């Protein structure tokens, strides 16, 4: 019995850990898409953030500085995406694809420059801390390998992610700013006639999506693992995008979807650890297969913001 509870704790713990990078990134997706701009560049922004986070944490020794720089690294690519799609009215999907290549390419390029030609960083000494660690371990309140320890002895990013979900929800639905973001995503012409600066709102939203995606990347590279490598972010940005859609463009929905994808990863690791006779590659497919299945079965029924992906042009035409 105790073993089963321990196993469940293990699965929940890994679920939370692996869902966290997805949650950050999906929140970014919610913000940008609610303003009417599609951002499939989340993957590239996450990739870039993962590298910047690990590199800065490695050189500075501060994981928090790494996380912050990762967020700003993502914001930089958000700015590029905004310049392309909002100011120059480029096709948002094309720009997003370009960002995916550029984000990943520039991260690898800088990595080779800084880490002697390697496409990975060295191991970060100080990872993101586990704030509740003092409660767990030998002679403490809980054992670190018991259910409580497995579930609650998490990295700070996990708690931060949950807090951010609540914050983004509050801003989107309870504040003036959030209402304007949603209005711009539904009907930018209407917002413009009421004196709302559509361009400014979209710039802000797209840059925030980069901010969150960058944090998501770092939550992977300096919390879940302790270094960046070129295969670390392999489709997580796209999974987060899928989670955002599956979560009906709502922060709370995206959270649940990310937890589901995290659970797929949790099972994968659990089954692998138990030595279940299934090829590891097949297990590793689980989150991706789940993404496909969910997108195919749910996307048709969800309602996207009305102005999503549409190019907004202000003014001078008849």
């Amino acid at each position: 019995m105790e073993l089963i509870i321990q196993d469940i704790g293990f699965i929940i713990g890994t679920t939370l850990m692996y869902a966290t990078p997805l949650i950050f990134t999906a929140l970014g997706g919610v913000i940008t898409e609610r303003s009417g701009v599609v951002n499939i560049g989340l993957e590239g922004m996450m990739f870039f953030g993962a590298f910047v986070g690990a590199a800065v944490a490695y050189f500075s020794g501060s994981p928090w500085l790494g996380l912050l720089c990762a967020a700003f690294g993502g914001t930089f690519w958000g700015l590029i995406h905004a310049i392309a799609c909002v100011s120059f009215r480029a096709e948002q999907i094309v720009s997003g694809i370009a960002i995916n290549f550029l984000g990943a390419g520039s991260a690898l390029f800088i990595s080779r420059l800084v880490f002697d030609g390697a496409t990975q960083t060295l191991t970060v000494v100080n990872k993101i801390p586990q704030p509740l660690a003092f409660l767990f371990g030998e002679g403490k309140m809980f054992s670190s390998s018991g259910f409580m320890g497995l579930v609650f002895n998490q990295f700070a990013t996990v708690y931060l992610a949950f807090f951010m979900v609540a914050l983004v929800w509050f801003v989107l639905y309870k504040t003036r700013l959030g209402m304007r973001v949603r209005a711009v995503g539904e009907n930018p012409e209407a917002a413009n006639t009421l004196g709302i600066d559509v361009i400014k709102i979209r710039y802000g939203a797209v840059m925030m999506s980069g901010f969150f995606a960058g944090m998501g990347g770092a939550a992977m590279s300096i919390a879940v693992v302790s270094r960046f490598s070129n295969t670390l972010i392999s489709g997580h940005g796209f999974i987060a995008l899928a989670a955002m859609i599956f979560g009906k463009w709502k922060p709370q929905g995206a959270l649940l979807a990310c937890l589901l994808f995290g659970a797929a990863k949790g099972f994968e690791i659990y089954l692998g650890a138990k030595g279940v006779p299934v090829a590891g590659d097949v297990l590793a497919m689980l989150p991706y297969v789940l993404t496909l299945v969910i997108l195919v079965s749910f996307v048709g029924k969800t309602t996207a913001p009305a102005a999503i992906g549409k190019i907004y042009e202000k003014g001078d035409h008849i």
Partner: protein
Amino acid sequence: MTTITKKFGDFVANDAINLKVHRGEVHALLGENGAGKTTLMNILYGILQPTSGTIRINGRELKVTDPNVAIRHGIGMVHQHFMLVETFTVTENIVLGNEPTRSFGVLDMETAEREVAELSERYGLAVDPKALIQDLSVGSQQRVEILKTLYRGAEILILDEPTAVLTPLEIQELVGIIRNLTEAGKSIIIITHKLGEIKQVADFCTIIRRGLHVDTVDVNTVSEAELAAKMVGREVSFKVEKKKQVPGETILEIQGLCVEGGRGLPAVDGLDLKLRKGEILGIAGVDGNGQSELIEALTGLRKVKSGSIIMRGKNITNLSPGKIIEEHKIAHIPEDRQKRGLVFEFDIAENLILQSYGKPPFSKRFSLLWDNIYQNAERLIEKFDIRPQHPATPARALSGGNQQKMIIAREVSHEPELLIAAQPTRGLDVGAIEYVHRALVAERDRGKAVLLISFELDEVLNVSDRIAVIYEGKIVGILDAEGVDENEVGLLMAGGTA
């Protein structure tokens, strides 16, 4: 507004136009489509910047650089296509951009709802502050738009074609609202090309033709015919002239037709209708009562769930559009001419053979015979007066009226037995409307049947021989057009019983 000029490249949309509006006055802005009315108002509201000219409000000169400036100076605009966020509530839409907040920008929706309720009571604009826009009727949505401007303290309200989408009853309500507003000292500028409305509500009327200021008149001193002549630049006949004609045998019979709409709900719900040779049957009704689905079912574009459509004794229910056009001789002037009526990037000649390109004389085996195609185009351009008179002009370069002429030319040259005309004059100006109506009557006079579907009650009343009123997917009454009572039709359209 003094000597306002606006150029788009070489095109002069407004050419030194003057407009003066007094407090508490209803001022109509009259002109054909593309005359420059909306451009002028967009300049006043700050959406467009004038190339030259000045705007003064209460004697002070003002640069309206964006809508914020206009709003601050008491100008409000109700756009023709409503500027509402469908998924927001009435209150959210009204306060958007000007939201009452507590500290840290947190919304204060209770205050907002209270203010909206007060406003709607003061001016007699009944709406539920908590309702979602997508659940409201068009008339209510318009009231929300008016409330939006009032919430921002508008003293001058611009209404862009406010009656285009309303039922006759809603139009009467709107007239009442306009009276309330002017009594409260608000000024109203109403953009329209409907003369009857001007006579009914406006005090003064400024007429614009091709960007030029034609005249400003006291509405009480001019007749509708005089206004129309000023607008078009020539005499226009309002009455559609048609001879009496005795209709022939039944050509189309629809029995118990049921068709599902976009959301899987019944849109056409047990509809019966008979159409005879040599008559124009007009279908009157408010948008969204199954008209589109009925047309799509008749033309084979949408699956019929149950019931039957009999054309010349043969059942054509659920046949393919090609068969219906080819073998059963039904022609269709679609509701959305730009989406369904023509191919934007094709030229006139190509658009004219969209149905018949696969047959002689236009093609032989695998190749198109371009000489014949262009000869055909030249003949039809001449006959139907399509301008510019050049077969290689792309459809997108034609005006709405000429696009419609091109579609009519194509459909009529096909020698149909039944012509379905859906909203055939939507967005057209007076001259083009006259043309389309004549074309419909000409088909009738040749002994063909015409089914006219329109949301413009005047059009249905003027052109048809018989009028069928559609409401919630059923025909709720069939009336003879001769001596029909407009109010009776209006009542039926709104679901009442005559």
